[in-house]
């Protein structure tokens, strides 16, 4: 294998004829040298990084995308916070990822309590555990003030964090029947969840 002197030789191995002008130095001599213009590339990267930094979310994943679930659209911009999640898709009702019942069976059930018993059991157990954690001060420090306010029956202002005691998220499909939502709200209220966060998609 012949030994060449050091230096750029891109043009020799790959003939980028269309990239060099005929009258240019590269076309005239065999010692042609191509310089790749990196400016547009750096520009594009800078714009992309800026855009991605703007949409970057540091709050972490609060909700999981579900098959058969299109969230309703709203103008509200209040951010979600960590809480037990009740998910209602087009076919199923799940709590913290575990199947509770099917939508069809709940809509068919005309029990006078207007509650979903399987969901009530889970929510009741969760509510007791959260209440105990809050009483023992096990919640994150930034929620202490919110829990103090809740004890004094002071409603949090818009955008303020809410005490996790009695807080749950409802992530339901936009086409869900209102009767089902009523039953879930009844069940949550009966289990001690007085604050519900309805997850919505921003316009």
């Amino acid at each position, binding site marked *: 294998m012949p030994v060449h002197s050091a230096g750029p030789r891109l043009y020799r191995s790959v003939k980028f004829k269309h990239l060099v002008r005929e009258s240019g130095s590269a076309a005239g001599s065999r010692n042609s040298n191509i310089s790749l213009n990196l400016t547009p590339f750096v520009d594009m990267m800078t714009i992309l990084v800026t855009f991605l930094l703007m949409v970057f979310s540091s709050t972490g994943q609060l909700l999981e995308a579900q098959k058969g679930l299109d969230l309703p659209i*709203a103008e509200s911009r209040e951010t979600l916070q960590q809480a037990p999640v009740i998910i209602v898709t087009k076919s199923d009702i799940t709590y913290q990822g575990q199947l509770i019942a099917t939508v069809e069976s709940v809509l068919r059930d005309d029990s006078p309590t207007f509650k979903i018993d399987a969901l009530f059991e889970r929510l009741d157990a969760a509510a007791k555990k959260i209440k105990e954690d809050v009483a023992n001060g096990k919640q994150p420090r930034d929620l202490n003030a919110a829990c103090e306010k809740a004890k004094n029956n002071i409603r949090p202002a818009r955008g303020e964090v809410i005490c996790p005691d009695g807080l749950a998220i409802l992530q339901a499909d936009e086409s869900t029947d209102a009767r089902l939502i009523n039953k879930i709200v009844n069940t949550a209220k009966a289990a001690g969840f007085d604050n519900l*966060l309805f997850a919505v998609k921003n316009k």
Partner: protein
Amino acid sequence: MSASIGAGEKGSVNVELNIVPFIDLMSCLTAFLLVTAVWVNIAQINIQPKGKTRDQAQVQQDDEHVTLSVLVQSDRIWVGLSRVNEFQDIPKKTGPEGDQDWEKFEATLKEHKTSAFFTNPERNDLEIAAESTTAAPVKYQDIIHAMDIAVKVGFTDVGLSDPQGLAARPSL
């Protein structure tokens, strides 16, 4: 690879800026941000379960002051005041789309917000219920839309009630 600055005549200072580390950093940052990017913006509407059937404290409260109640049905929206028993009927728009008349609903709520009953800045409560049946279902999106408009108008303390538990319910 480098970018030169100030290439000039003999004797002038020619600085070559090595941009390879910069491009490396940008590439890593772009890859990281693309992987962790959130493409769907999810927000929340905070509500309290309300209504006479759910909240016993409200029965007493209803006797003390006027409550603004909204009943969403598949073909219309009722807006009413308890004790006064004054109701406004907002029928669905006519036409091929046949959507609820949200503009009129918003205007009605604005009107109530500026009325004498709600001049106290602490009075920003409102209750919403949806009456859905198998024959005439009401979708969750409609409830959310009604709540969203209520919050936008200034009724930040939105409660979700069942139709039987509304403080003001139109006699149909």
